[in-house]
C-alpha cells in the first residue's frame, strides 16, 4: 500500500519535471527573436546569420529542437554556452558543489535552530514568549534578503571589521578562514529559512498537542518537556520533516540574492549572469537544476508524510 503510494508519487514527480522542461524550453526557445541574429549583432551579413542558424539547429521545427535538447539534458550534456563557448556541463560542474556546500551549511545551522524555536513556542503556546516569537518570525519572513545582507555587511564587515564582505574560498583555507568566509552568507540565508521552518514546526507540534492522547499524558501528570519531546514530537515528525523540506526549497530562491551580494561563485549567481548575457543553453540548464532540486524537496516532503502516517502503515 505504502510502496504503491510512494511509487505513484515518484511517477507524478517525473511527469511534472517533464512538464517543467517543456515550460522552460518554450519560454526560452520559441521566441519571435532570433538567437543567431541576437548573437552576431546587427552588423552580421545574412549569410553568416544563416550559417549560424544552421549550426545551432534553429532551422528545425520547435518540437524537434525540444526533443534534441531534452535528450542532451538526460544524457548529461545540455549544450554549449553561447557566451563562453564552453560545455554547459563543465561550467555547472565547477559551480554546483559550491552551491551545495552553502546550502548544506545553511541547513546544518537552520534546522536545529528552527526546531528549537518551533518546539519552544508550541510548548509555551500563547505565552508572552510565544507571542513575541510569532511577531519576530512573522517579520523575519517579510524582510528582503538584501536588507539582511546589507545590515550584516554594515555591522560585521564595515563597523566591527570581523568578517570579509566577499566570500572567497581558496582550496587550502583553514577551518577558521572557511568559517569566517561563510558566516555572512549562511547567516543571511538562515534568517528567512529559520523563521519559516519554525512557524511550520510550531503548527505541526501544536496540532499534536491538541490531540486526546496528549491530554491523557497531562492528566497522568507528565511534565511539559516530557510531553512535548516524548509524546507529541515523535508523532509530529512527519509534518515537521515536511516543513523542513519545504523551507529548505526556499533556499534555492534565496541563494540568488545572497550569492550575488557576496560574490559567491555558486550556481545561482551563474544563472543571474546567464540572464544578463542572455546565454540561453546555460540558463535553461540552471533553471532545470533549480526546478529539479525544488521538486525533489517537495517529493521528499510528500514521501515522509506518507511513510510517517501510521494509518497508512498498518493497512
Amino acid at each position, binding site marked *: 500500500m505504502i510502496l504503491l503510494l510512494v511509487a505513484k508519487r515518484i511517477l507524478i514527480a517525473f511527469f511534472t519535471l517533464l512538464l517543467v522542461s517543456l515550460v522552460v524550453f518554450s519560454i526560452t526557445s520559441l521566441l519571435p527573436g532570433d538567437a543567431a541574429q541576437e548573437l552576431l549583432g546587427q552588423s552580421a551579413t545574412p549569410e553568416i546569420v544563416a550559417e549560424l542558424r544552421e549550426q545551432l539547429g534553429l532551422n528545425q521545427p520547435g518540437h524537434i529542437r525540444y526533443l534534441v535538447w531534452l535528450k542532451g539534458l538526460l544524457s548529461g550534456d545540455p549544450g554549449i554556452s553561447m557566451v563562453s563557448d564552453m560545455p554547459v556541463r563543465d561550467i555547472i560542474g565547477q559551480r554546483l558543489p559550491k552551491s551545495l556546500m552553502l546550502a548544506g551549511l545553511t541547513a546544518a545551522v537552520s534546522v536545529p535552530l528552527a526546531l528549537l524555536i518551533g518546539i519552544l513556542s508550541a510548548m509555551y503556546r500563547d505565552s508572552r514568549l510565544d507571542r513575541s516569537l510569532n511577531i519576530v518570525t512573522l517579520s523575519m519572513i517579510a524582510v528582503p534578503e538584501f536588507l539582511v545582507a546589507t545590515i550584516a555587511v554594515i555591522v560585521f564587515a564595515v563597523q566591527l571589521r570581523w568578517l570579509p564582505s566577499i566570500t572567497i574560498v581558496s582550496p587550502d583555507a583553514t577551518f577558521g578562514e572557511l568559517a569566517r568566509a561563510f558566516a555572512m552568507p549562511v547567516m543571511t540565508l538562515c534568517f528567512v529559512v529559520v523563521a519559516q521552518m519554525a512557524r511550520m514546526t510550531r503548527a505541526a507540534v501544536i496540532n499534536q498537542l491538541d490531540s486526546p492522547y496528549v491530554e491523557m499524558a497531562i492528566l497522568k501528570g507528565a511534565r511539559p518537556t516530557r510531553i512535548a519531546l516524548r509524546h507529541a514530537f515523535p508523532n509530529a515528525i512527519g509534518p515537521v520533516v515536511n516543513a523542513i523540506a519545504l523551507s529548505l526549497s526556499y533556499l534555492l530562491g534565496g541563494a540568488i540574492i545572497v550569492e550575488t551580494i557576496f560574490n559567491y561563485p555558486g550556481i545561482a549567481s551563474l544563472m543571474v549572469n546567464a540572464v544578463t548575457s542572455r546565454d540561453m543553453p546555460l540558463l535553461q540548464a540552471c533553471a532545470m537544476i533549480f526546478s529539479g532540486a525544488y*521538486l525533489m524537496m517537495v517529493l521528499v516532503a510528500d514521501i515522509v508524510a506518507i511513510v510517517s502516517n501510521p494509518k497508512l502503515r498498518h493497512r
Partner: protein
Amino acid sequence: MNRVRGAGLVGLVLVIAWGLIALFGPMLAPYEVGAIVAPDVFERMGGAHLLGSDYLGRDVLSRLLNGARFTVGLSFGAALLASSSGAALALFSAISVRWVDETVSRLMDALISIPGKILALVIVAAFGSSMVLLLLIAAVSYMPGAFRIARSLAVNLNQMEYVQVARVRGEGRVHIAIFEILPNMIHPLLADFGLRFVFVVLLLSGLSFLGLGVQPPDADLGSLVRENISGLAEVAPAIIAPALAIATLTIGVNLLIDSLASGGRSVTDEA
C-alpha cells in the same frame, strides 16, 4: 491578546501609510526625482535633505517617495491579477468535467514546481523587462499558488449541501460557481491576496536589486538599493532607507493579515 492587537494595529498603520505614499508620494517629494541637488554624494541624514543624498547627489527622500509608487503599484496590480485569475481558473476547474480539472491542475503543478524567482529570471532573459512585462511575470509566478488554494476551497464548497440543493434546483454551473461558491471563499482569498502581495514585493524588489527589474530612469525601491550599493562602506542612508522601506511595507502587510486571521478566531473564542 492585547499584544497581537497591538502588532495588528502597527501593521494597519504601516499599510495605510504606504498606500498614501504610493498615491500622493510624488506630490510630497521636496525635489525633482532626477535633479542633482546636493553638493556632496552620500550625505548624512538631516539638514536640507532629510534622508541624505544618493550616489549622484540626488535627494533620497524624493526618490523614495517616487519609487514607492512603482513598488506598491506594480505589486498590487500583479497580486490582484494573480489572485483573480487564479481564483477564476480554480472555479472553472472545480465545476468542469474531471479531465479538464485534472489537466489544469497538472499544468499548475508544473508551474508551481518552478520556484518564482527562477521562472521570473527565465522570462526576463527571454523577453526583457518592461513595466508591463514585470507585472505579468509576477502575476504568472504567483498565480499557480493562488489557483491551488482557491481550487481546494472551491472543491470543498462544491460538496456542500446548499450547492447540491442549487444543483437539484436546476441552476447552471456558471450560476453555481459565481453565486453559490465564490461568495463563500472571498474571505480566505483576501488573506491569500495579502500574502501574494508580500511575495510579489519581495520578488520585484529582488529583481530590481539584481538590475533585472524596473529599468532606469525609473526606479523602484529595489533599484534604489542597487544604485546606491557603493555607499555600503560609508553606511549611507541612501542604501539603508529604501531597504528599510521595503521591509516596513512587507512586515506591515504580514502583521495585518496575521492579526485579522487570529483576531477572527479570538472573537469566536470569547463569544
